[in-house]
């Protein structure tokens, strides 16, 4: 906020004896008032508002104020003079403010400030002197002070007025329980208040009177932090000769929260936590080197290139100056919403107090709007910033015309991923029934109503009206921790959770369609399978392994070399081997060939090929057993083992050992 925008708020709390009386089962007006005040101040504290707040109690036993003289301004205590609200004040209100036993004059005190609000919390049970009312009104008017009343009951018996702000959680609104009858004194008070408010503000005077209850509801949310947008002045240029003076503001930006500082757990001081950074070589001793002995480098793929800061500074891309330049114009449909980059939107206007700029700007906005085109811009915030490419599109409102600017991606930012077609895939085409179930689901969960006039819409769920739940939760926790440092965090407030839920009407309406969807679409939790191959799986004695299904047996081949066997088709292994071995030509040189082939499989180091190798070995073993050529197989294994050891394929050998007990295998291991 600019310096002029601060306001002073005086909270005047009636602590007179009557404030403590309440209907059974209800909180006393004083407690309610205190809660409203607490909520209000909490909002101020977390919004880091610069407004100053004072608390004045009236109806106190003592008197402490600098206007007190004689019998004037008695029983009024200035509890705290104007200053920024803080947690001390919050604690005070919760714990220290107690009932006074007196009744007080009904007066507010004033102080110099630019914008003034006085909030009166009272049940109006104190006598009100009408004679001084005129003076008070005159004073308030003179100083432009606004006055708000907070009362424990509505002024007109019924609800004084509806909640004017859009209420996000109407379900919380309850009917007020019947009140105890007002005393004559209170009625008289109401009259005075009404008179006062009417005189101060002829039109909406009574709207400044709130009940405690509705205040609590409204204040339940933590206030959003108001930030005054900083204007950015520049010239919009089209080519080298046409420029229009503009001013731009950030419209949306994800607000950065305060960062957490690290503090020592014992002393709770951040100064006690120190950091030290050391550099060391990547050797066994981790030899430390001085910072001065290091230089900066960059990775260029596999290379690391020394590139000092100075050189980098000298050679790097330099933005000349701030700019907002048109590169060209494009049909608006060519800019897709999902291509928006960055985290903000700028709202661009013609410069202030420059009618010529405003006309030129207006011509641009209208022309863009009528042609349905957008401007592609180069935008640089200032000389130190990297330039952006972005789009500026027009918006025409009754009161103003503007451009919105959003960043667009550079070529380097776009990832062109390909996804399987859903259209051309019969497996996932929904049936007519399924489609109609979805159709009625969408209808039942429609959040937008067209009004009777057919032009305006009523939107049941507007995220842009919801405060960020993260901040709400953070403030709630911080506040809790401020008062109770050693307690665990409180649960999330119910009203916050409700705000994030499907509106009740919609929830009811979509029940049946959802049941239908559930019935028509078979959905099954797949549960993540973990693929783990053990030796047992691999040596399972079935021939119909995954490979078996894959290809037809190549019977037509009539040459039976062991090479062929190893070449690929594992299902035919035993068959081929049988033929092969039955010819009686199993000998050591064949084995060598087989070993070499297995070896080639193993080059690949993947379980797929391990399996091939193992299948070969197993088939060989089976046949060798049948033909009682045991020695031959064992020789083969011996040779394989030495080969495998050379290549550090211990894992493969492990599988072999686990899965296969050779005839006298132990001797080999």
């Amino acid at each position, binding site marked *: 906020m600019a310096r002029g925008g601060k306001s002073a708020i005086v909270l005047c709390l009636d602590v007179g004896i009557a404030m403590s009386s309440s209907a059974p089962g209800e909180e006393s007006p004083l407690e309610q008032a205190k809660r409203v005040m607490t909520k209000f101040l909490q909002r101020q504290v977390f919004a880091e508002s610069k407004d100053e707040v004072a608390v004045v109690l009236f109806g106190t036993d003592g008197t402490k104020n600098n206007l007190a003289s004689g019998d004037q301004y008695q029983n009024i205590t200035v509890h705290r003079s104007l200053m920024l609200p803080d947690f001390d004040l919050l604690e005070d209100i919760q714990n220290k403010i107690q009932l006074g036993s007196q009744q007080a004059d009904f007066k507010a005190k004033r102080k110099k400030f630019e914008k003034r609000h006085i909030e009166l919390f009272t049940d109006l049970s104190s006598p009100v002197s009408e004679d001084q009312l005129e003076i008070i009104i005159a004073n308030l008017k003179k100083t432009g002070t606004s006055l708000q009343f907070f009362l424990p009951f509505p002024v007109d018996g019924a609800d004084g007025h509806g909640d004017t702000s859009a209420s996000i959680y109407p379900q919380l609104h309850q009917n007020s329980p019947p009140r105890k009858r007002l005393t004559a004194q209170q009625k008289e008070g109401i009259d005075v208040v009404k008179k006062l408010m009417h005189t101060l503000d002829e039109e909406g005077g009574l709207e400044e009177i709130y009940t405690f209850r509705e205040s609590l509801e409204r204040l339940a949310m933590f206030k959003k932090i108001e930030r005054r947008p900083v204007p950015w002045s520049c010239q919009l240029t089209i080519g080298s*000769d046409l420029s229009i003076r503009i001013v731009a503001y950030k419209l949306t930006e994800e607000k950065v929260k305060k960062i957490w500082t690290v503090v020592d757990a014992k002393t709770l001081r951040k100064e006690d936590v120190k950091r030290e950074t050391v550099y060391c070589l990547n050797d066994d001793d981790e030899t430390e080197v001085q910072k001065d*002995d290091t230089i900066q480098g960059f990775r260029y793929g596999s290379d*690391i290139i020394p590139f000092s800061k100075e050189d980098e500074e000298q050679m*790097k891309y330099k933005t000349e100056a701030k700019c907002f330049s048109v590169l060209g114009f494009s049909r608006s449909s060519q800019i897709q919403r999902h291509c928006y980059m960055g985290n903000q939107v700028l709202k661009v206007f013609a410069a202030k107090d420059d009618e010529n700029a405003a006309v030129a700007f207006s011509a641009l906005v209208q*022309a863009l709007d009528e042609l349905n085109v957008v401007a592609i811009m180069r935008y640089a915030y200032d000389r130190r910033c990297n330039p952006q490419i972005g789009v500026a599109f027009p918006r025409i409102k009754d009161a103003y015309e503007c451009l919105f600017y959003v960043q667009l991606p550079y070529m380097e930012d776009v990832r062109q991923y390909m996804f399987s077609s859903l259209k051309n895939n019969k497996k996932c085409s929904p049936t007519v029934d399924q489609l109609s179930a979805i159709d009625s689901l969408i209808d039942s969960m429609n959040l937008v109503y067209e009004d009777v006039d057919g032009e305006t819409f009523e939107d049941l769920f507007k995220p842009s009206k919801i405060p960020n739940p993260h901040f709400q939760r953070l403030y709630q926790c911080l506040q809790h921790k401020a008062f109770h440092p050693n307690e665990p965090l409180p649960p999330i407030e119910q009203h916050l959770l409700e705000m994030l*839920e499907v509106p009740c009407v919609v929830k009811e309406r979509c029940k049946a369609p959802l049941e239908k969807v559930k019935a028509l679409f078979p959905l099954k939790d797949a549960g993540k399978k973990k693929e783990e191959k053990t030796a047992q799986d691999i040596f399972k004695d079935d021939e119909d392994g995954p490979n078996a299904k894959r290809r037809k047996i190549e019977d037509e081949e009539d040459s039976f070399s062991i090479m062929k066997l190893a070449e690929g088709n594992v299902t035919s292994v035993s068959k081929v081997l049988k033929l092969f071995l039955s010819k009686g030509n199993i000998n050591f040189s064949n084995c060598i060939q087989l070993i070499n082939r297995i070896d080639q499989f193993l080059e690949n180091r993947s379980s797929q090929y391990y399996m091939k190798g193992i299948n070969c070995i197993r088939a060989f073993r089976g046949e060798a057993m049948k033909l009682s050529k045991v020695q031959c197989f064992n020789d083969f294994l011996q040779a394989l083992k030495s080969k495998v050891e050379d290549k550090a394929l211990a894992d493969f050998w492990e599988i072999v050992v686990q899965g296969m007990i050779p005839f006298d295998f132990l001797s080999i291991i």
Partner: protein
Amino acid sequence: MADWVSYYRGDGPDEEEDGEQQEEEGQEAVADHRFSGRDSLIFLVDASKAMFEPYEDEEAATPFDMTMQCIRNVYTSKIISSDKDLLSVVFYGTENNKNSADFKHVYVLQELDNPGAKRILELDQYRGDEGRVLFRETFGHNADYSLGEALWACSNLFSNVGVRLSHKRIMLFTNEDNPHANDSAKAKLARTRAGDLRDTGIILDLMHLKKLGGFDISLFYRDIISVAEDEDLGIQPDESGKLEHLMKKVRAKETRKRALVRLNLYLNKDLSFSVGVYNLIQKAYKPYPVKLYRETNEPVKTKTRVFNGKTGSLLLPSDTKRAQTYGNRQIVMEKEETEEVKRFDSPGLFLIGFKPLSMLKQHHHIRPSQFMYPEESLVTGSTTLFNALLMKCLEKEVMALCRYIARRNTPPRFVALVPQEEEVDEQKVQIAPPGFHIIFLPYADDKRNVDFTEKVPANREQVDKMKEIIQKLRFKYRTDSFENPVLQQHFRNLEALALDMLEPEQAEDLTMPKTEEMSRRLGNLVEEFKQLVYPPDYNPEGKVAKRKQAGDGQAEKKPKIEISEDSLRSYVQSGTLGKLTVSALKDMCRHYRLRSGGKKQELIDALTEYFSGR
């Protein structure tokens, strides 16, 4: 000292303190790499004579040139966007050979490794006419190759890499549609080998190039190529006769798509299906610098130690807490509690309802969008439901509104799911995938009120003149129209240094308006428009008169504001020191001889301490 806890920066993600300041996206990307291994890509290039023969159009590059240009582009873009990926170039159909299994006519030019400057330089040697000669001299051509062996050599390359590979892909560049027409044994071997590759999860893409008489995939390659399960379009793209088109085919497949997160979309509490969330757009940043030892240029490790400044004792993470200050009070939480504050629900997308697409406000932008595609691995049947939802949303022109929690400790955000119909271009390359774009919507806190400039509407004549200007400057915007000049210059500088070039190549800055071309196109229009809107003496570049006055006023410096000790004290007591200007605060610090930093808060702290101490 040795037992000090230390952790390394630069070597991996900072998990402790710095994690808090890290952008969420950054964490995802890094985490992905660690758990799933590296991506690898082999360019398998046909080097037989036909590849070096120019097309009828003399101007056009030869198929081989085009291929090399394309590979080079992938190398440079990988250096910028994902330099951890492994690339390799293998020729087949050469006279000479070089590969681990000694197959004939297969030449491994570059083993699988990170792309680097020297490799790019090596590729550049074989471009153009001179390149063709050099290629012939170095490698020669021989048509007696076996494609099966070439594929075998490729799979050996994958298996000889020491690191875990998550994604293995071969891109085969050729303009021969029936390489083993007369040799059924070789054809069979190639098929067998291709089958083996498929079984081991290696994807084989065909980047077929234009051939006289057309490239007929059905002759041979239909059985060879393997389509990744998640990239099945049901159609094959056309052959490429132009680099641009080849690039498009290659770019669509060069990077492995990675889901940021897989989660469930809940239609209500007990009805959900699963989706994968992807980033189709991700800001590419200049990489962080590495610290090198001056003597040897070797990278150094960075260790950061956290210790107590007073006692010098080491602080374990559990010895610290986190604090924020509000309303003059420091509020302290455990680190775990700061995480818990962000936890609302388990991850997922929770359907709120539907709204017409027209309700999505163009200016409600807060974060780059994400993309959603069905995921069968968690809930089977998801794709059908997803598809039905997509079809209906497209038909009814509605978007779905959801509450989105991406990870466990992420607070919820509201998102609009905008349906996207699949689009393929004339050459049957996918340009828009089917699915939903996830558009992030702002909360009340994210929006600001701005005061506007009163409008002074332009008249018809003025608007029409502007329309003429606009019409002259129209072009077709594409997302890949503009390169990032900052990144390009940075990498060109590095390239120049790496290759000992004298001068770095100057990157063309596409973001600069082409003023000459614009002036030429606009002719007199600008003058005419100016005459319509600006008075003759008006200069939009000049500062406003008002401003100037303010400037003059500044010349006579404001007298220093003297603040009495009493008023200062009252400022301190009410905590309103912030009202004073920095220079006033500085003066006061000087007056009371307080040492302090230059920041406003530091000045305020110093003064507050001084006065509250007395």
